[in-house]
């Protein structure tokens, strides 16, 4: 038996509503995340990622309520995050119904955060998200959308795992929003460097992009946002395609 590759819709929110747009500008309201969650669950999504965008005006209590409403629609895992920087904030999202919590910028600033969260909640509940940009043949860690943190993605991912992150979520900032396909070289490099599950995000546009990131990229899970939200392809059709091409998926 092998683990199925996971198809994971990503829902970006302003705290309570789904938003879409390039970067953090021109975000447009795209609906109720709970309704979309229910639909994706019924269509065969293996997990959902729900994010509170950094520029969002909504407070933590509002997002926790959104997590609660989305979790109530799901009987698949829910991973939530966005600006999480403490044990208390993590606990609030887990109690609201998230199964895993994402840390990103706060962990770069204070790696000890990963250690604390893993000790308190178990590694299975902690996902280290890393935003990556390719430069001079390696990938740099990016925070806050554009700022280089002076770290190499591979060594940061390894440190995160050593500190107890149960999973890595790597996003290519070069591919994000382009629909030109995932950065499979980034995916393959990170998967090779760590011994935990790796989720990959950024660039999904076609079913072949998923095929590539699962084969060449060796990813355990692939995220997509607008490709699913705009109905470019249904999760069901995507899974049937991947299955026909020999990728192990939950059908």
């Amino acid at each position, binding site marked *: 038996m092998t683990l199925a590759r*996971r198809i994971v819709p990503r829902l970006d929110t302003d705290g309570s509503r789904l938003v879409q747009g390039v970067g953090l500008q021109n975000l447009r309201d795209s609906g109720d995340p709970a309704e979309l969650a229910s639909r994706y669950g019924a269509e065969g999504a293996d997990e959902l990622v729900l994010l509170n965008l950094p520029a969002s005006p909504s407070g933590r209590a509002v997002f926790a309520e959104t997590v609660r409403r989305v*979790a109530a629609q799901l*009987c698949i895992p829910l991973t939530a995050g966005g600006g999480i920087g403490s044990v208390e904030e993590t606990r609030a999202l887990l*109690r609201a119904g998230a199964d895993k919590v994402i840390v990103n910028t706060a962990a770069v600033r204070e790696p000890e955060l990963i250690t604390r969260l893993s000790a308190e909640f178990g*590694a299975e509940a902690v996902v280290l998200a890393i935003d990556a940009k390719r430069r001079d043949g390696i990938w740099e860690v990016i925070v806050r959308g554009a700022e280089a943190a002076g770290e190499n993605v591979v060594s940061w991912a390894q440190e995160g795992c050593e500190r107890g992150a149960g999973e890595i979520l790597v996003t290519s900032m070069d591919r994000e929003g382009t629909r030109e396909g995932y950065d499979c070289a980034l995916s393959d490099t990170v998967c090779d460097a760590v*011994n935990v599950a790796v989720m990959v995000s950024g660039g999904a546009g076609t079913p072949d992009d998923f095929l590539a990131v699962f084969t060449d990229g060796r990813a355990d*899970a692939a995220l997509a946002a607008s490709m699913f939200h705009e109905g470019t392809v249904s999760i069901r059709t995507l899974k049937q395609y991947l299955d026909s091409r020999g990728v192990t998926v939950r059908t």
Partner: protein
Amino acid sequence: MRITLIDYGAGNLPSVERAFQHLGASTERATTPEAITAAQVLVLPAVGHFGALMHALEAQQLAEAIRQSLAGPVPFLGICLGMHALYEGSAESTDRAGFGVFPGRAQPQPQSTHLRHLGWNQVEHIAEGRLLRGISPKAWFYFAHTCAVAAGVAAGPGRVIEMRPSAARTAEPPVGAVAICHYGRPFVAVAERGHWFAVQFHPEKSGEAGMDVLRNFLGALR
């Protein structure tokens, strides 16, 4: 019949609670030994570290009440780490014992695999049981754990181990094993023994198949 969920502070209790409610069961959360003693059905959803779980149950005075309930006829379902609590213990914490209603201990995965078994996998039905009744052998379940009870070795109280070569090669599953999963090595995914039930995966996170498992558990109570 009310489902009593043992609440020691674990993260996944709300999801399990919601799943049972979705199936029409009435639920309550037990945070005191009295609530556990009064329960008609007990469920222990737990995640994280075995030592931390057993320590929390002792510290909150829940362990003794659980022990007494397990000595009686109250049905009990352990989920994920809650399953390990029903066994003798876990390699994660050698100074804390489990409740021991199933023989065997949870062990870590071999080095050949990812550090954690995280994601959707299928199980192999190896014995007649109630939890998987009517569920396709191709169904997928969501797993998120590091340790598990190995299914490749003979185990069980009172069994005489005869020192013959053939017996040494016998790989009988542990007592109560109803379904096994393979990740690095075979391990127990579902165990049943009388009114004690244990699942390594998260039924509340396993889509329709998981809901069917919980529905079967409710059905077994009648």
